């Protein structure tokens, strides 16, 4: 079962073609890493996939449901409000800078969306949220406020918040880039644990070793196109394309 399918995605900002004919598909349980230099369009691709940006052209499909479908000229035509609302339930997004709600306690950050948006019963949601916090090693922090937590703890809360909505697929946009090196490890471990539980994930990252170890598929992007993709070992240890080699050489000492 394909959880996510993006076909021939095009995206321009003014005259700047940021994504050029990007196609990508993610099956259930797959972990896909996206790597590439700054400005290559990784974040824009994730933002298109999560409906934060609208694609100019192409298809965007979750679980066989079309969020956007290309018309005869290839122009992306988006579904109506109701359709998109349903499709949004399929994915979650973890931001580089967490974007927790500062006026809510940790537990409220995690429980409000499933109760308010998911219309799930309060008791069940709270029980699940406490379970998630325990898994994230934050059982004692449920009544803390985001500003009282370290960056790594805040990012774990934001991962718990996304998971509480029970998404089919979880996107991460550089989840460790705002963190000190010591705190990076704890987030990477959480993501590894999720991978072991066969959570479907798409991760934009600059951590090459992590991409190689955690994912089933690596995509290298540059200049708005997918230059090379495939098995993580192959791509990261034995890249074929010159641009990939040049990019990866900077990560090897």
């Amino acid at each position, binding site marked *: 079962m394909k959880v996510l399918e993006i076909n021939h995605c095009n995206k321009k900002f003014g005259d700047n073609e940021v994504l050029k004919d990007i196609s990508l598909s993610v099956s259930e349980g797959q972990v896909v890493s996206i790597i590439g230099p700054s400005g290559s369009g990784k974040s824009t691709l994730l933002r298109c996939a999560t409906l934060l940006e609208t694609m100019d052209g192409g298809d965007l499909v979750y679980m066989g449901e079309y969020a956007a479908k290309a018309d005869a000229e290839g122009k992306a035509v988006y579904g109506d409000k109701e359709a998109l609302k349903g499709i949004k339930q399929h*994915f*979650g997004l973890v*931001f580089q800078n967490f*974007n927790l*709600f500062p*006026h809510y306690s940790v537990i409220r950050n995690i429980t*409000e969306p499933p109760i308010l948006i998911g219309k799930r019963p309060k008791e069940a949601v709270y029980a699940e949220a406490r379970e998630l916090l325990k898994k994230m090693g934050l059982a004692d922090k449920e009544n803390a406020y985001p500003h009282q937590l370290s960056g790594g703890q805040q990012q774990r809360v934001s991962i718990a*918040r996304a998971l509480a909505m029970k998404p089919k697929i979880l996107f991460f946009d550089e989840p460790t880039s705002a963190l000190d090196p010591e705190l990076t490890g704890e987030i990477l471990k959480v993501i590894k644990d999720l991978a072991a539980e066969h959570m479907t994930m798409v991760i934009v990252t600059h951590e090459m070793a992590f991409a190689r170890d955690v994912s089933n598929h690596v995509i290298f992007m540059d200049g708005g196109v997918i230059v090379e993709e495939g098995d993580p070992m192959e791509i990261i240890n034995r890249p074929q394309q010159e641009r990939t080699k040049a990019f990866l050489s900077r990560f090897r000492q």
Partner: protein
Amino acid sequence: MNFVVIMKQLFDGMSASVMIFALTLLFSMPLGLVVAFGRMSKWAPLGFLAKEDGKNGFLRLTIATFRPIQFIVKIIIAILRGTPLMLQLLVVFYGPFYLFGVQLPRSYRLIAVLLGFSINYAAYFAEIYRAGIESIPVGQYEAAFVLGYNKSQTFRKIILPQMVKRILPPVTNEVITLVKDTSLAFVLAYAEMFTVAKQIAAAKTSIMPLFVAGVFYFIFNFVVAFVMERIEKALSYYR
């Protein structure tokens, strides 16, 4: 006029001032939010004139990006903030008669005072709200959007509470100014604290009533500042 009568008149004046103050806040704070939304309106009915390839001439771009609601609200705010409140009170009170020949009943005096104050203060609150709303990081909207919050849920649950905390200091300033501004109602000869004190002072050739008025405004503002500080404290549980 004995002492007891004077005290009673001063007391009635105080009550009137407190009432103007309270009712003005009650009306202008919500009205300000409506005005703020108008001020932030992005509705551009001629937007369809813009060419898709982005190659618009200056005139076409100007017309296509014209936002009528925002434009009108901007002008109204500019007038309300750019002219004396005292003048606005006079216009609201005498306008109906001089412009339209409408004879309004005696009770219109209070209504005119409240209308004038509420509209004027709504303009100031609107700009404070707008600054507050625009200071909320875009990431808050994006997080709410991805979690499935609709526009109204995002505003009520995520943006508004954070905005309230951020705007408390400028709102406190406005509220303190309002306490003193209530004395402007004297131009409509409405019997609030300042009007009454001035009358008695003239009748009795004594400065005492004005002194009492001064003490009243000071204590009133002391209470206001105290209450606002408590609210700020109550919201200091997060950053």
